[in-house]
């Protein structure tokens, strides 16, 4: 265990401590889930709750620990990092470790809280489902992988956490792998992320080679202190890292995996969309923010561009979805667009603030959706409706989530979205600002549509839905509290604690802090939200009917384009995946067997042909003949010599004595 050797001074603005023993043992947060996963794997099935209790206990400990850290952080501010050397290679030290500062503590808390509630929810939701124990193993691993990612002080550990999250998502999305679509969705998620990871990997390689270190804090130090080597590659490295973030945080055009990922059980969606996985990209950008701000501001423009594109395009698709979970999925993509765009505009705190509030209300919405799906046994909103009477708790909490997402005061989304809009406005990005306002309108609209189709009107489905178990509704209630109140930690002009939390880190953050509400942005955003809700309510509740759903308001051909998700999937399959898988791979295989192998075989044939010639002409009729002649000569000679072997003793004796005499005479007289 090696403590950081260089002290990256915070340049005076925020006073922080090293966090003491609590920070020193923060590795427990990371290691515990993996140990728990092992235990669940091996003895989980024999336990009374089939392993869920271990998962719950683990995540409970993590939550408590993160609360303790959070408390300590709020009272005194912590920024510290720890390294363990796991190998040296050339001039590089490969190090793992853990970082305890505002950003990571915020993430610990979010992951801990959301995961805990999702776990509690899942114990009931998944009851009686196939592979119950394995589900909790994966879920624990998922949380653990996310903690590996957010606790990492080195780029290499980020990469490790990054991919581990991907694998866990693969396991969880493909939970019902008996159906091919599900395993295909899991594969799609993994491979899309892998494509993005190539960007991240190359980005990390470039950064590492130009700074000579893999430690994030040292890279950031160099980025903010005029080191020439890193400056040359800042733009390309920044873009490459962002490509990585695009994969995990589902930015256009790499967002395609996320809606498909709804194939997993709902708790997985909740966890994945709220606290783990999709926030990884935003986290990475936030972690590297000083680098972007200091020397890669051109890359930030690209970040912002993609963020804005994503928030609009994904929001539009959400409007046409009939699947409740897919609406929420596209909503997540859209909200991630907000976060990424915020980072792009330089609003570090705003992005993280939105991540923070979004985690709670999106988890709430997903769990609520899960509760509904659990009750009606269908994902399609066309088979729902009128559920507010039979599922009052779910309905109430879902409404709170919706309002928070739509950005109405005093709910959480209002404050965070407003801060993002204010940042856009402040940066003078007028076009993007209006697109973001439009996004807010769309968000409010599709959420109202979802609520209307699901809870209002008459029930269109089968069976008799009823309210979910307390184990499922309790997390909903708790999350509703957070969805409502988590925005109050960063009210401009009143209390800006959140800003202090997340900016408490070793490398200073320089950004715009709104001193008070930007009334222009606030007004437009609020108006967009209200109009959206009103329009949605009008179209889907007052105009629409229970039988037909939303079929009335289709505007061709935009609707078709949206329903086909801009033909992006078709494009990928038609122009990338199928050519590779069907044509290129086949071509290579054919090349292998028919060209290279044929050549090799031809070589063999040529050799055997030559061999035949040599064999017949030279060997058989040449050398062999000589050999055969020699052997037949021996045979003939032997045939003659054998006549000596008469078997007559006297003859033998005669020969023997003759020999003896001859030799003796020779010795005596000649030699």
């Amino acid at each position: 265990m090696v403590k950081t050797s260089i002290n990256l001074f915070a340049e005076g603005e925020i006073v922080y401590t090293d966090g003491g023993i609590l920070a020193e043992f923060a590795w427990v947060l990371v290691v515990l889930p993996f140990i728990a996963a092992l235990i669940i794997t091996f003895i989980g099935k024999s336990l009374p709750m089939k392993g869920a209790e271990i998962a719950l206990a683990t995540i409970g400990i993590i939550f408590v620990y993160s609360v303790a850290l959070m408390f300590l952080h709020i009272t005194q501010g912590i920024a510290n990092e720890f390294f363990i050397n796991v190998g040296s290679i050339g001039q590089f030290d490969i190090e793992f470790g853990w970082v305890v500062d505002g950003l990571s503590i915020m993430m610990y808390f979010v992951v801990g809280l959301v995961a805990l509630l999702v776990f509690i929810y899942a114990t009931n939701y998944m009851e009686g489902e196939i592979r119950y124990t394995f589900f909790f193993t994966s879920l624990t691993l998922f949380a653990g992988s996310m903690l590996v990612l957010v606790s990492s002080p080195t780029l290499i550990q980020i990469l490790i956490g990054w991919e581990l999250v991907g694998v866990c998502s693969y396991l969880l999305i493909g939970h019902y792998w008996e159906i091919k679509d599900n395993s295909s969705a899991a594969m799609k998620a993994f491979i899309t992320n892998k494509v993005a990871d190539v960007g991240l990997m190359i980005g990390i390689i470039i950064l590492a080679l130009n700074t000579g270190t893999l430690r994030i804090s040292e890279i950031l130090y160099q980025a903010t202190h005029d080191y020439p080597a890193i400056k040359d590659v800042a733009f390309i490295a920044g873009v490459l890292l962002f490509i990585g973030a695009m994969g995990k945080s589902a930015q256009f055009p790499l967002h395609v995996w996320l809606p498909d990922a709804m194939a997993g059980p709902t708790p997985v969606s909740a966890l994945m969309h709220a606290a783990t996985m999709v926030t990884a990209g935003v986290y990475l950008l936030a972690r590297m923010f000083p680098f972007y701000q200091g020397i890669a501001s051109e890359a930030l423009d690209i970040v912002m561009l993609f963020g804005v594109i994503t928030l609009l395009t994904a929001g539009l698709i959400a409007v046409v979805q009939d699947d409740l979970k897919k609406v929420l999925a596209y909503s997540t993509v859209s909200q991630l667009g907000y976060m990424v765009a915020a980072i792009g505009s330089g609003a570090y705190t705003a992005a993280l603030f939105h991540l923070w509030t979004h985690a709670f209300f999106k988890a709430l919405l997903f769990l609520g959706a899960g509760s509904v799906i659990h009750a009606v046994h269908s994902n399609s909103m066309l088979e729902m409706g009128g559920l507010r009477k039979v599922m009052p708790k779910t309905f109430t909490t879902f409404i709170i989530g919706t309002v928070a997402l739509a950005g109405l005061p005093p709910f959480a989304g209002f404050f965070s979205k407003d801060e993002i809009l204010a940042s856009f406005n402040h940066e003078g990005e007028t076009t993007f600002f209006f697109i973001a306002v439009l996004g807010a309108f769309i968000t409010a609209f599709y959420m109202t549509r979802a609520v209307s189709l699901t809870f209002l009107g008459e029930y269109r489905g089968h069976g008799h839905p009823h309210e979910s178990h307390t184990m499922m509704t309790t997390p909903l209630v708790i999350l509703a509290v957070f969805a409502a109140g988590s925005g109050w930690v960063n009210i401009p002009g009143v209390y800006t604690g959140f800003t202090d939390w997340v900016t408490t880190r070793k490398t200073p953050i320089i950004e715009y802090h709104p001193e008070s509400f930007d009334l222009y942005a606030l007004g437009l955003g609020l108006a967009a939200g209200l109009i959206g809700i009103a329009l949605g309510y009008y179209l889907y509740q007052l105009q629409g009917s229970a039988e037909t759903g939303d079929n009335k308001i289709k505007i061709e051909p935009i609707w078709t384009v949206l329903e086909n998700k801009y033909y992006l999937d078709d494009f990928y399959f038609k122009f990338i995946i199928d050519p590779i898988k069907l044509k290129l791979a086949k071509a290579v295989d054919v090349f292998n067997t028919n060209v290279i192998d044929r050549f090799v075989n031809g070589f063999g044939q040529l050799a055997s042909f030559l061999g035949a010639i040599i064999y017949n002409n030279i060997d058989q009729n040449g050398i062999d003949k000589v050999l055969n002649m020699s052997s037949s000569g021996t045979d003939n000679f032997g045939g003659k010599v054998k006549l000596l072997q008469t078997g007559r003793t006297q003859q033998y004796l005669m020969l023997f004595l003759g020999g003896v005499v001859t030799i003796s005479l020779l010795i005596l007289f000649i030699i």
Partner: protein
Amino acid sequence: MIVQPVLVVAAALFSIGIYGILVRRNAVMVLLSIELILNSVNINFIMFDTMLADTMMQGQIFTIFIITIAAAEVGIGLAIVLMLFRNRQTANINEFDLMKW
């Protein structure tokens, strides 16, 4: 007494014995020839014993031994010839060519 003639006669006996072995066709005759050879050796032994005036008389003692062995040899040899005769009804050693190729 001169030594040379006695030794030469012994050598002559030896050669005559060899001749007999090589030329005789009857197995018993071959054995007789072998006796001649042994006898020539005996003469040599006695001659050398006398010539060297050996106090241990080893020449004579060896001669006695040779005579004994010769007796044994004749016994066995004739028994073998007898066996062969019983099997082949002949004592002609040209008939015994089992070792032929």
